[in-house]
């Protein structure tokens, strides 16, 4: 029998993998993908809790998360394109113009 913990642990695993991807990879596109993954993990939590309480509020929030993820992907990829065009690299280590 599935309980809420199953879904929470799954979401935890995906979220941790996403964090690991952001911290361990140097390619900005993969970092952005990892952020998508983390948002996705949060969505699982919301939908699972929505099922737990038998209301759709959690799913309504999941809609917002998906919308935010789409907006984030669009703008993030636009920035990546521009930066990649100007600096000829997609390595986050090389994007250090603002680093003191």
């Amino acid at each position, binding site marked *: 029998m599935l*309980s*809420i913990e199953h*879904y*929470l*642990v*799954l979401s*935890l*695993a*995906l*979220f*941790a*993998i*996403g*964090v*690991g*991807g952001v*911290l*361990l990879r*140097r*390619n900005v*596109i*993969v970092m*952005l*993908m*990892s952020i*998508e*993954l983390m948002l*996705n993990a949060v969505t*699982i939590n919301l*939908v699972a809790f929505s*099922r*737990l*309480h*038998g209301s*759709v*509020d959690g*799913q*309504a929030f*999941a*809609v*917002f998360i*998906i*919308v*935010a*993820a*789409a*907006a*984030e*992907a*669009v*703008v993030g*990829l636009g*920035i990546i*394109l*521009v930066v*990649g065009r100007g600096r000829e*690299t*997609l*390595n986050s*280590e090389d994007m250090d113009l603002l680093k003191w």
Partner: protein
Amino acid sequence: MSALNTILFYFFSALAVASALAMITRRNVAHAAIFLVTTLLATGGIFLLLRAEFIFALQALLNAGGAVILFVFVIALAGPQATARLAPPSGRAQFVGAALALVVAGQILFAIVVGRGSLRLPAMATEIAPQNTEAIATALLHQFIVPFEIASLLLLVSMIGAVVLARRRV
């Protein structure tokens, strides 16, 4: 039914976690994008198990069908830079990164374990609104109308932002 649900849950979870791991370990960005699609679709399967059909449709339509196609586009447009083999981060950075990820995971796990004892969660609700789409629409347009409008504004702003960013002369 319950047994089938359990089997499907483990199947989709294993698929999601495995392809997420493959996504962050693959050197080739294009392959990472493919694995991201697999993860998102497996998560969509989880949503179906949770009887959230509308969220599943959104997931397939917007995330797997829309956002990842954007990634694919950018990878193709960026050309060799995107697939260039970057020097892996230094050993210390790798250690710190992995440790941080594990710490985050540990904290959430701790919260789950503690909450399990203290939060007396009820058993999974068995009855769910049969008209999932209508229920979500009602919630979005009555209870959450302000966030809904703000989300549409966010989409508009990001669309304009993307157009401005992608133009040749900024």
